[in-house]
């Protein structure tokens, strides 16, 4: 369904605009003008976050932390197969998709770990990336926004694991 949704949405917009005699091309240019400036302003923030994430992951620290946390997670009903995914999820979108497909391959796409992992990834965001991107250029002090997001995301993770046992 979503394959049709976006193109249809864009088409609808252009049709409504044309019907209302809006100068569509000019309006498009007016909006798109901001693109280069926006991308350039966000770049240094993205670079800093992604460099830190890359060092953290490639040094093996992410899987080390995952191993430490695994017993604690198990108490909360999170299977040990998922700990690394949960540690990586808030840091790297592509990294967690990679781990997700690895879980599919290893345990089968319809297994409990695979379903729980799907729900965890689908119901959360790359918190650090969102914070860097959205705050980029304006926010110097996040005043708990990142901490709150991480806590809420973790609560969602515990609930995801629980829901997948029920459904």
């Amino acid at each position: 369904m979503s394959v049709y949704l976006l193109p249809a949405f864009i088409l609808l917009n252009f049709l409504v605009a044309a019907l209302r005699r809006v100068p569509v091309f000019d309006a498009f240019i007016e909006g798109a003008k901001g693109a280069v400036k926006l991308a350039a302003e966000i770049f240094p923030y993205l670079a800093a976050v992604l460099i830190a994430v890359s060092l953290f992951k490639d040094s093996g620290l992410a899987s080390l932390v995952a191993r430490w946390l695994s017993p604690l997670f198990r108490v909360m009903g999170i299977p040990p197969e998922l700990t690394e995914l949960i540690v990586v999820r808030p840091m790297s979108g592509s990294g967690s998709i990679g781990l997700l497909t690895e879980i599919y391959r290893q345990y089968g796409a319809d297994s409990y770990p695979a379903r729980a992992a799907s729900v965890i990834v689908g119901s959360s965001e790359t918190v650090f990336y969102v914070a860097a991107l959205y705050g980029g250029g304006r926010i110097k002090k996040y005043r708990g926004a990142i901490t709150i997001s991480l806590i809420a995301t973790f609560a969602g993770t515990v609930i995801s694991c629980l829901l997948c046992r029920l459904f």
Partner: protein
Amino acid sequence: MNLLFVIMMAAGLIRMLFFDPSGALGAALAGAENAVSVSIRMLAVYALWLGVLGVMKKNGVTSFVTRLFRPLTRRLFRGEKEQTHALISQNLAANFLGIGSAATPLGIEAIREMQGEKAEATDNAVLFLVINACGVQLLPATIIALREQAGSASASDILLPTVISTAVTATIGVLLCFLKRKSGSKRKV
């Protein structure tokens, strides 16, 4: 963010120096290269969606979406200008539909409107960031497609738990924001 950055960089580098010193610079550069490719992809995405949003502003769709979300944004984001409410509404609408790429430029602009020249995140900006970082979306299309590819018999059976889990996550995030506000104002008194 400063503390977090130092901890992640230092911990990563220290471990690299002990176990894989030759890979350290490569890992850092890989991160930077990732930022370059993400930025270029975002530039393309911005050009398309900011263009479409420019059209939406002129054809009346923007004001329609704003009216639709007004009851919600009015309650959550008190004291913001009408223009900011429009940006917030569109960002939320794009998120619900799963158009993260359109939500991003709108979200960035909304934060800029909320912040003005302030360096510390305002209460509203904190709330807005949390909502966006909790991944509010109704259709996990990418995940379902991935599961299908991996040979799942019923790839979309994760839909309901995902929607419930997202809703719970976002609700907890919003509640925590309001709790924090309350404790903060008490401390001042």
